[in-house]
């Protein structure tokens, strides 16, 4: 078997290619981004002509993947956990339509919020939609599970949710690869009304779905990923996903002492849980994420078995797990090194030297100074760093696109002036629809689109907005007179302050397009160019 060092993300990507995927769709988001990046860079994907395009947002990605499945081919869509909120409408309904070609939805959760606004647990979405959820314990399982996920998807005609978390996504290990499988040929669904969710059809299909869901725990592939091991101890342990690794880190050599149910696939077979619980006095639940299994075990009354976990403080209520947290929950001795000396300072992320956003904020700060604080609604991206010193300019960062629409609501409440700051990729992700609302009401909002012509925060992926922002704004109905373009550079500072102030003073909608290329992508492009030149010299 051929072995390769792969991130968890990359293992999923390579597996999808080897399992006969015909197309992948995604919007970048940490910690899921590397899945698509790997597929895009893969010679195998290029050779096999696998469709591998970034989408405008997670919803459009999910729908495109569903369309590929409709046409009979295997498709995958990947996103970070909050992306599944954006795709949720399509995702939940795709369980009711069912699929034709196999369909995998990868959701990468970020417990401890290394790069996120929250730490929501995507397993709930699987239960919500009534679809199987697979949660690999390690990189090899991430690879192997993709094959099973496509097969399960085609067997039950359901999308399958593959749930990973940051540590697996961004940790590398050696993975054994299989021989690639052929891709499906195009074929229409046998029932032409399968994807037509008119109420009469939807009711029938939803009822079938609820029935099907009840049978899933007994599926051999699903229950096969969940492993029960006997032990002499009186405390049983249930682990979910990578929590199993932290358990093994602590009990290797004494495994026989611990009865363990290691869960990696949902819905979980009740019989397996009963076997563990009935043989123990207490049960400790270790989950990377929300206390989902723990809550189910406790039930509404929480009085039958003694359950320990996140809800009783045995494990912290929030944040990711680690070997020490698990050791403490097991009552084992822990070690620690020396304390961090008090002189060690926090080092928060910051704008790169020469970042265009920084020059934009410098101009905005001056233009808006006279009105006092509390007027800048921002969004998610590198430009959110305007919330940190020395700028301290950003008053909101909630979800992609919320800058525009929160500014609309605030002006409706009488706040004037109100400024929204959004990045170019965020604008095409979810800002355009809000801008249409503002156009129709002529809200007195000044929208600054800080266009660095890339999706910067996630590492510089192509931005759907590049070279299209003016025409999008004009097409939505922004007046030409109040669509201004500035180049955020120190030498243009005075001029930029004047433009922003003029538009802030305008009692109607304005858009200021602050455009200068991200210095990271600019330098990367330059390097690639000179490398190409050197190559031709050789």
């Amino acid at each position, binding site marked *: 078997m051929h072995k390769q*060092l792969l*991130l968890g993300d990359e293992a999923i990507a390579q597996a999808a290619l080897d399992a006969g995927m015909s197309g992948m769709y995604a919007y970048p988001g*940490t*910690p899921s*981004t*590397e899945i698509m990046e790997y597929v895009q860079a893969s010679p195998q994907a290029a050779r096999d002509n696998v469709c591998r395009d970034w989408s405008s947002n997670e919803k459009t990605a999910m729908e495109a993947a569903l369309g590929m499945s409709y046409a009979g081919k295997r498709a995958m869509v990947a996103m970070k956990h909050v992306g599944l909120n954006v795709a949720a409408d399509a995702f939940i309904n795709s369980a009711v339509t069912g699929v034709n070609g196999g369909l995998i939805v990868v959701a990468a959760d970020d417990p401890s919020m*290394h*790069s996120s606004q929250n730490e929501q647990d995507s397993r709930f979405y699987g239960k919500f939609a009534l679809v199987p959820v697979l949660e690999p314990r390690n990189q090899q399982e991430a690879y192997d599970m993709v094959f099973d996920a496509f097969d399960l998807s085609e067997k039950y005609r359901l999308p399958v949710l593959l749930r990973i978390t940051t*540590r*697996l996504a*961004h*940790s*590398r*290990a*050696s993975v054994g690869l299989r021989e690639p499988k052929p891709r499906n040929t195009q074929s229409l669904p046998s029932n032409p009304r399968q994807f037509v969710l008119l109420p009469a059809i939807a009711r029938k299909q939803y009822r079938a779905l609820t029935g099907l869901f009840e049978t899933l725990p007994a599926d051999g592939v699903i229950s096969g990923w969940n492993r029960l091991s006997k032990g002499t101890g009186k405390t049983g342990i249930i682990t979910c996903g*990578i929590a199993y*690794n*932290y358990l*093994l*880190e602590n009990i*290797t050599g004494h495994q026989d002492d611990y009865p363990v149910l290691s869960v990696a696939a949902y819905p979980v077979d009740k019989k397996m849980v009963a076997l563990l619980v009935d043989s123990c006095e207490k049960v400790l639940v270790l989950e990377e994420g929300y206390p989902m299994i723990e809550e189910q075990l406790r039930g509404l009354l929480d009085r039958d078995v003694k359950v320990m976990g996140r809800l009783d403080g045995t494990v912290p209520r929030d944040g990711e797990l*680690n*070997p*020490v947290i698990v*050791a403490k929950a097991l009552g084992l001795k*822990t*070690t*620690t*090194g*020396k*304390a*961090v*000396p008090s*002189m*060690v*300072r*926090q*080092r*928060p*992320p*910051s*704008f*790169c030297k020469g970042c265009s956003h920084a020059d934009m904020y410098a101009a905005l700060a001056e233009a808006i100074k006279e009105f006092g604080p509390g007027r800048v609604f921002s969004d998610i991206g*590198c430009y959110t*760093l305007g919330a940190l*010193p020395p700028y301290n300019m950003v008053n909101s960062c909630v979800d992609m696109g919320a800058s525009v629409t929160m500014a609309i609501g605030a002006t409706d409440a009488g706040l004037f002036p109100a400024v929204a700051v959004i990045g170019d990729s965020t604008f095409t992700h979810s800002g355009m629809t809000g801008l249409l609302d503002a156009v129709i009401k002529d809200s007195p909002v000044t929208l600054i689109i800080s266009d660095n012509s890339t999706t910067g*925060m*996630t*590492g510089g992926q192509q931005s759907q907005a590049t070279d299209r922002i003016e025409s999008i704004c004009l097409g939505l109905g922004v007046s030409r007179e109040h669509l201004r373009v500035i180049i955020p550079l120190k030498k243009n500072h005075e001029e930029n302050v004047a433009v922003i102030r003029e538009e802030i003073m305008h009692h109607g909608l304005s858009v200021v397009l602050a455009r200068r290329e991200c210095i990271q992508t600019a330098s990367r492009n330059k390097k690639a160019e000179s490398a190409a030149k*050197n190559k031709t010299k*050789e």
Partner: protein
Amino acid sequence: MKCDIILAGVGGQGILSIAATIGLAAVEKNLFLKQSEVHGMSQRGGDVQSHLRLSDREIHSDLIPEGSADLIISVEPMEALRYLPWLSPEGWIVTSSLPYVNIPDYPGLEDIMTELNKAGNTIVLDADAIAKDLGSSRSGNMVILGAASSFIALPFESLENAVRQLFKRKGEYIVELNLKALRAGRDAAGRP
């Protein structure tokens, strides 16, 4: 055999090239390896770390438990101190002495050196100056890796092979520069 390493630095300093080199060398020696990296938000000038674990037996956790790292390799002196809770009492710190100052309240360098010396087994070297002397100002990372090499459970030749593999794409000249940097680091650390 197990060797748990924390790699530390500031986003943008490229600690991942050190990780990649050790990773390739471990694969050559048929060792088990897990290496968790930081991507995303903190790569914008924030503190970043990577947990790298080598073993001749299967490795379970992607994260190193506190108090058990054998080695901290840091490309920035204050960042080396941030991970002391992970270092085992017998562990070593190998760090560059060149501060990366992108915060207003960066502490005095002398205070940092005092803490580093108190921390236990420490090797501090001006990796960037050594790299510059070799005519390769961007190879500071390989100097640091070379200085740490005697504490990594891998033969030096495997690290050299990994450097060859990693930089092959960039041509023979770059490969040689990085090999020189790796060896210069080993010599500067003065350990067999």
